[in-house]
Every structure is written in structure tokens, then in C-alpha cells.
């Protein structure tokens, strides 16, 4: 893990002092990328100061996903039939005992992936898979190519358009298998294809499939009755089914996020609960009841012990993933009801450095919470309806 030693001022970063220093210096930089619920725009903010660093036009209002490396932000525009890519301007080269931090301007890349109704974005070790629901097609590429401005991709087709996902995994592609009788319903399994496009083994059954996340070297895919757990195998990915434990009430997971620093998954389980999942533990599922319905949740990549859940009463909760309990709660916004359309404007969470950021779309505000004290420190005004948010950054040496 990279250590946070010193934060340089934004002015210094912008002036390029760090980049021109002739000796190694430890610096920290974090950026936030925020999309608007109603306008086709992505804003880049310096996380520390809240200062806007750039504004990028998209085709339609977009959802956002960041690559594992944090070098690239993908603007997935389901209603615009396009995925655009933004270079975050921050890259950290891992050199084992230290990282090298490189800071440049964020910029919209001249790379687009067109296709009907793009939905799921998955990055696995720099291999990017984009799934286009309207075609039932996966387009896979590499982050290196995207950053080099190359829009080359490999296409893998499923049997029918459907709401699915794909993962590029160890030279194979994992693809959702549509429900043949009712393609409008959720997929029924995972098909593995090799580099030549040939199917490997049988379809792995996973009725009601929705939601995927990676944590370390494990990938989890949520199904109606449990999870598919995917690991590297000798020749092909190894996939096993982990049923929900009998102690859980009726329910299922449809959204997953993967722990960073600790290997676990956090998923929804019914509207008013979340579940902590450790597929290697005897007690694989720990369900945590929430005071009201869940709006959004995120893991803390800097403090592996914590994840955060926002609930419709306007509260954000600190979840200790080791003890499996909510340890702190903080009132933050007016209530945001989960009644209405699933994609109505509601808060989203991101963590950058020592702060937790929560968008408040109906108040044009970004709330900032100190991650250590779990107290609100400030509000940042953001034009429009700030909605999806991702954070990238870290610390490292600049030469």
C-alpha cells in the first residue's frame, strides 16, 4: 500500500513543480469525476480544494466507471449508444517498494465505443469489457490501447440482446447467457469462451444474474440463489457456485462491490439490508440490517476496514467490515425516497484520500466527510444535479 506522506498544494501541481523536480519527492493527488443527472457533462474536480479542473461534454447524461488503475474514466451512456473515455491525468506506476506519481491534465480521449445500450463496464487487470444490452454483444479492449487513442476491440456475441455483462478474464471472456425464452428477463448463466471464441465447458447456471465485482484475485457474480465465484485456473477460469446461506431470509443480491485491501464483497440483500460476503469463510454471508432503504454503497479503498452505505433517510453509515456492524451514522441530506424510478437523481458515494464525498443532486452540492472522524467538514457547490461520482488518485514519488 502506498503511504500518504505529504500533500502538495493544487497550485504546485498545476504549475508542474512536482513534475520538474530533479529529485524524488513524495506527493499525493486525488481527483473527482462527477456526471450530471440531466446534462451531458462530466466535471473533474481537485478533491482537496473542490476546484474544477475541467469539464467534458458527453453525448447524453452518463454513468461513470473508473478503471482499476485509475488512469481512465469511462462514460457509459446507455441512452446515447456510446461509451466515451476520459484520461484522469493521474497515474501511479507501481515499483514494489514505492510508486511513481505522474500528474497531467485530465482530457477527453479521442476514443469511442459505439453500440446499442451499453450497460456494464468491467475492468479486470487492464482488460476492459463493455457489454451492449441492445445487441447482446461484448466489446473487449485494453486500457493501454484506450489511453493510446486506439479504439480497437474484440467482439464476442451472445445469442440475443439482453441486460448482461462480460468480463475479460485470463485470456478468456465470461459472458452472460440470455434467457432464451424470455430475453427481456435477467440472464440465466455464464458462458466462458476462449481467445478463438470457442465455448469452454458448459454454461455455468446462474438464473436471475445481475451484479458483478472483483476483490483481489476473486470475481463474484450475483445470481438469484447465490453467487458464482470465479478464480484463475490452470488452463481456464475456475467457477464455483456459492449458495446463499440458509440463515439468510428470502432475498438476493443484485449489486456488488469488491473490497479493496481486504478481500470481501458487499452486496444489497433486499431493499433494507446489505450483506458482507467472504467466500472463503465458514460464515460466508453476514447480513446487516439498515434503518431504512438503501440508496448507494461504496467501499473505502484507503481504510480497508470500512465501507459506507447511504440510506433514503439522508443518512450515511460507516460499516465496519471486520465486525460486520454499523459503527457510526451521520445525517447528511434531506430524505431521498427509493419510491419512483430506479434511476431518479439520488446521492452517490466516492472515497478519495482521507475524505468521503457524497453527491446531493437536488441541492447541487457535494458533501465532504472526514473519513477518520466521520464528521462533515464542508460542502462544495456543483452546478446542476451532481450524480455519479468516481475518485482516482493516491500518492507516490515524483521525479
Amino acid at each position, binding site marked *: 500500500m502506498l503511504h500518504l506522506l505529504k500533500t502538495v498544494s493544487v497550485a504546485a501541481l498545476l504549475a508542474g513543480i512536482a513534475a520538474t523536480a530533479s529529485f524524488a519527492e513524495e506527493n499525493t493527488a486525488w481527483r473527482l469525476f462527477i456526471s450530471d443527472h440531466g446534462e451531458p457533462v462530466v466535471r473533474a474536480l481537485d478533491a482537496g480544494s473542490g476546484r474544477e479542473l475541467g469539464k467534458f461534454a458527453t453525448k447524453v447524461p452518463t454513468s461513470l466507471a473508473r478503471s482499476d488503475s485509475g488512469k481512465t474514466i469511462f462514460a457509459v451512456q446507455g441512452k446515447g449508444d456510446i461509451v466515451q473515455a476520459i484520461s484522469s491525468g493521474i497515474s501511479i506506476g507501481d*515499483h514494489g517498494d514505492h510508486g511513481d506519481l505522474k500528474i497531467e491534465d485530465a482530457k477527453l480521449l479521442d476514443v469511442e465505443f459505439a453500440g446499442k445500450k451499453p450497460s456494464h463496464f468491467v475492468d479486470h487487470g487492464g482488460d476492459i469489457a463493455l457489454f451492449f444490452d441492445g445487441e447482446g454483444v461484448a466489446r473487449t479492449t485494453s486500457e493501454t490501447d484506450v489511453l493510446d487513442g486506439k479504439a480497437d476491440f474484440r467482439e464476442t456475441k451472445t445469442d440475443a440482446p439482453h441486460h448482461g455483462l462480460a468480463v475479460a478474464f485470463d485470456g478468456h471472456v465470461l459472458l452472460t447467457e440470455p434467457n432464451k425464452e424470455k430475453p427481456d428477463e435477467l440472464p440465466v448463466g455464464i458462458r466462458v469462451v476462449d481467445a478463438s471464441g470457442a465455448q469452454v465447458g458448459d454454461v455455468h447456471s446462474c438464473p436471475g444474474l445481475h451484479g458483478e465485482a472483483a476483490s483481489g484475485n476473486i470475481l463474484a457474480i450475483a445470481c438469484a440463489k447465490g453467487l458464482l465465484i470465479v478464480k484463475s485456473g490452470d488452463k481456464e477460469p475456475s467457477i464455483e457456485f456459492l449458495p446463499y446461506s440458509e440463515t439468510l431470509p428470502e432475498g438476493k443480491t443484485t449489486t456488488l462491490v469488491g473490497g479493496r485491501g481486504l478481500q470481501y464483497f458487499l452486496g444489497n440483500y433486499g431493499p433494507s439490508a446489505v450483506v458482507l460476503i467472504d467466500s472463503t469463510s465458514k460464515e460466508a454471508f453476514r447480513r446487516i440490517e439498515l434503518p431504512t432503504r438503501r440508496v448507494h454503497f461504496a467501499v473505502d479503498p484507503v481504510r*480497508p476496514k470500512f465501507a459506507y452505505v447511504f440510506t433514503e433517510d439522508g443518512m450515511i453509515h460507516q460499516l465496519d467490515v471486520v465486525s460486520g456492524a454499523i459503527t457510526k451514522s451521520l445525517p447528511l441530506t434531506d430524505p431521498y425516497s427509493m419510491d419512483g424510478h430506479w434511476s431518479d437523481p439520488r446521492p452517490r458515494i466516492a472515497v478519495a484520500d482521507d475524505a468521503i464525498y457524497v453527491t446531493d443532486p437536488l441541492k447541487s452540492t457535494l458533501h465532504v466527510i472526514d473519513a477518520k472522524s466521520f464528521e462533515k467538514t464542508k460542502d462544495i457547490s456543483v452546478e446542476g444535479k451532481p450524480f455519479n461520482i468516481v475518485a482516482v488518485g493516491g500518492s507516490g514519488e515524483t521525479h
Partner: protein
Amino acid sequence: MLKTIRLAALMSVITLTPFGLASAFAEPLKVVASFSVIEDFAKNVGGDRIEVTTIVGPDGDAHVYEPKPADAVAMSKADVVLVNGLHFEGFLQRLVEASATKATIVELTKGVEPIKMKEEFEEAEEGEAADGHAHHHGDTDPHAFQSIANAKIYVKNIAEAFCAADAAGCGAYKANADAYTQKLTETEGEVKAAIASIPESKRTIITSHDAFGYFEHEYGLTFLAPEGISTEAEPSAADVAALIRQVREDKASAVFVENITNTRLIEQIASETGLKVGGTLYSDALSFKGGPASTYIDMMRNNITTIKGAILGS
């Protein structure tokens, strides 16, 4: 009547006191071992006075291990945490922070003379540094336990840590450590004798990753490996080609897979050079119970027997 009550009270004190003491003694020292080799050392020193939880179990790879919330729970309850140190456990800092453990973290390589990673890899990495400056990726070899002389230092450190945490058991810990050290000395004699029986010209072999630097340093075999001291980084094509060239020039006598690494790379080297894979060496983890290397002593015996067998063809 009063007398009776007093007597009854006294009796209950008499009967309860030994029970209370026994119960205090019966509570085992809660020990977390970072990986299976340390677990075996700890059990040999602690006997039934300790209860060990191991984070990276048999056949597990500590270099790339991802700690789980349950590991943090175990660590938070521990009295003593035994680790290798020298950056062997990349996950350690995260786990210490997540668990907020108050246990003493004992680095068992304290007192070991560290050796550096092999020079050819430092040179290769410097050559690969495209951004114009060299990087040393934590250039100390952490696999000190592959020398039995160092294993004795680990055992001594464990006995000291247990004594500090449980003074009442100190005599037992020291006696156990002494007895186990004696067994280690005997095993070391067997390893040295086995190596002495291998012709000097045949003492270069190939494994997956640089886990045997201390074995080489102590006992005189030369180990070449496509991967560096950590399994985390993939070897470059140039590293693999260089190894294949060395085998073809008859500089290596045998090639081995390791229990913790993928066998593909070694199988590729074997198939391109015509060398037969000589067996499995246990590098950074013991085998499961019932396997050929479920204790440290069995691991060292199994490794040298496998090496000698493959080189001498017997």
C-alpha cells in the same frame, strides 16, 4: 450456625481457588502465524499452551495473498502475532490496521543476516526501467526460513515472544525450543550430506521463483528462476529465454515446479529444453496434512530428496 456458614464459605474458597487457577492456566495463548512454516515452528515451541490461527495456509502463496475480514478478526483477538518480516507478507500492514490489534507483532527474521535478491534480476529490472531511473523492488530476499540455520533463529525468537507473553510457560517454551532445535540440527546434517553427494558440476537447478537464495547461500546449490523473489511479477520473455539458453548450454541439471506457483512456466521451460520436471519443491508453504511436506522438517527432507533424486536420476 455461624461457624457452619464460615466453614462453608472457607470450603468454597478452597474448592474454587484451584479451579480458578487451573482455568487461568488452561486459557491458551492466542497466536496468529502469518503462514504455514511459522505455524509449524509455533506449534513445536508452544505445544498445547498455545492456540494457532494461520493466515496463509498449506500450499498458499503469501506474496499474493489477499487478507480476509476473518483474518482481521483473528488478529484482533491474538496475544502474539508471528510474521516473517523482510516484506514477505505484503498484506501485513493492511491487516494490522484493519484489525486494530494490540498484540505484539514479532518479526522472526530479527537476528537473521539478510541476503540481497539475485543480481541478475536487479540488472534486468534496471534495464527495464523505461522512465530513465532504476528501481529496486525491495531488494532483500525474505525467504530466510529456507536455511535451517535461520530456522533456529526463528525458533529462538518464537520462544522469547511466548515467554514475554506467558511468563508462566517460559520453561516449557524454552525446553520445547531446545528439543526442536536439536531436530533441526539433525535435519541440517542430512541436507548437507545429501548435497555433498551431488557432483559440483551438477549443482545448478531451476525453480519457478527465487525462493531458495538462503538455501543456496548456506548449502551450496545454485537455483535459477524465471520469477524474482516475489511471485507477483510475471517474468519477462527475456528472463525465460535466458534460462532456456542456460539449460541448453548444460548449465542446469534439473527443473522443478513449486507447490505455490502455477506450473505452466516450468512446464514450458522443460518442454523447450527436453529436461524432465524433477518433481515439486515446497518453497513458501507446507503441504496439507498427509502430504509429503506437512511439517518444516519434512519439507526440507522432501526438497533435498527430490533435488538429489532428479539430479542423480535415482
